[in-house]
């Protein structure tokens, strides 16, 4: 096992992928706690589809993928919040609208230019080979920003997540915090989606939060537990995908499912025992 690990980390691209992946998982888990509780779980899914569309456009224009997709996805995140706030179109419908539109645009752009090839498949399901040096720097930067903002605004994020009306009524600029969370989510997703895949990246947002909510009883413990669970699952997923030559994104999701099942089982057991007592 140890020799397999040291062999694995002798590949520079794998080390890069693990570094980026761990940082992205950590950020996604922190943001995910707030998103899941605010009933915005699908925002990650919607944004990753927008990411797919923008990657397709970037490929067609022969531009750097991140330079094109980061601004587009951030714009989409702002748009999603605006649409949901106006309540003419409900949040879930707005996300469905945006994600299918960008998927359609992406597919048409691809078929008109390069045609369906392995690149496209990698965008959809992820590839461990996609991470270069810039991604490592970007993800370290992102992680520092997300962690710092999360620590500084932790109490405000809790208040806005729990009760936006109360927060607004007592003078907390709730809209600004929603925007901040949406923007960081957009960044996290664009960085992570080429490794995890556009179709799978939202699992990093949803699973750790839901898993830790099975057992944890305070916001602080949910947050910490989600961050730890997310990092551990990612690491095990990558090692698993290396050992069994399975796709990275899907392997990480499988580990997340397993952990969710374990936490769920324990919480069921606890409830039953309390009911019996």
């Amino acid at each position, binding site marked *: 096992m140890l020799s397999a690990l040291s062999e694995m980390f002798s590949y520079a691209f794998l080390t890069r992928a693990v570094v980026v992946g761990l940082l992205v998982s950590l950020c996604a888990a922190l943001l995910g706690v707030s998103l899941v*509780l*605010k*009933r915005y779980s699908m925002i990650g899914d919607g944004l990753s589809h927008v990411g797919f569309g923008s990657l397709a456009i970037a490929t067609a224009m022969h531009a750097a993928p991140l330079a094109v997709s980061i601004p587009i996805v951030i714009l989409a995140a702002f748009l999603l919040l605006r649409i949901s706030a106006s309540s003419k179109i409900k949040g879930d419908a707005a996300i469905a609208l945006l994600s299918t539109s960008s998927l359609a645009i992406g597919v048409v752009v691809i078929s008109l230019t390069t045609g369906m090839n392995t690149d496209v498949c990698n965008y959809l399901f992820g590839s461990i080979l996609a991470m270069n040096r810039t991604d490592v720097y970007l993800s370290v930067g992102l992680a520092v920003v997300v962690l710092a903002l999360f*620590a*500084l*605004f*932790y*109490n*405000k994020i*809790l*208040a806005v997540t*729990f*009760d936006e*009306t*109360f*927060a*607004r*009524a*007592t*003078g*907390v600029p709730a809209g600004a915090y929603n925007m901040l969370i949406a923007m960081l989510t957009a960044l996290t997703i664009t960085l992570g989606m080429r490794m995890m895949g556009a179709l799978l990246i939202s699992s990093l947002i949803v699973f750790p939060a839901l898993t830790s*909510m099975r057992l*944890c*009883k*305070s*916001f*602080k413990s*949910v947050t910490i537990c989600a961050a730890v669970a997310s990092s551990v699952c990612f690491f095990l997923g990558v090692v698993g995908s290396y050992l069994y030559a399975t796709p990275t994104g899907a392997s990480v999701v499988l580990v997340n499912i397993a952990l969710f099942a374990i936490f769920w089982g324990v919480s069921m057991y606890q409830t039953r025992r309390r009911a019996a007592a």
Partner: protein
Amino acid sequence: MAEPLIRCRDVSFAYDGVIALRGVSFDVNAGDSLCVVGENGSGKSTLMTLLLRLKSPQSGSIEFDGALRADEVGYLPQQTAAQKDFPASVREVVLSGRLSSRQWQPFYTRADRAMAERNMDRLGILDLANRCYRELSGGQQQRALLARALCATKTLLLLDEPVAGLDPLATSDLYELIDSIRADGVTIIMVSHDVQSVIKHATSILHLRVEPLFFGGADEYAASAIGSRFLAGKEGEGHYA
């Protein structure tokens, strides 16, 4: 007599051209307990939004006594479905009431924690401080939210349907708590469907049906034609049929 805490003059508000409130005027003095009653869609919640300064009236004015800043108002909102299963401890929820006074400081001080502790004690939920909010009963959750509101204010408390969904015992407990909070000098404005019990706990009543139908003392309301009709549950036949 001292200046009123809130002076509401001829206030009107419309959503997309549909009038929700028209020509509402009333005063709230320090130490009052004003109860806003009326049927669904009578503009009660709209009035609440205006009093919370989340929106401004399209005409008319709401003047607050100079000493009352927006971040000094305590608010007990109606619970959303998302809150009922929220994984936060009671202490975390109550502490979040101190946020408005934190401004840009990121962390709570010892004084904030002490205040949260005092308010939990005052509402009899100190022993629940480390319990998870979603595991509490409806009445306990309301107490936690009330403790949070008290952390935000010393002067004015706005309550939106505080007893909605509570059983009779929890309801009367909560009314007693609200009375004791008023006895400590906090002015109360409450929106409620529950006219029969509210009238025993209010000093003045504002009855809305888009326009104000009655504003005055609680005793006068019970004696008035509209008040006695509403109290007997005969107001707005369609709603009760």
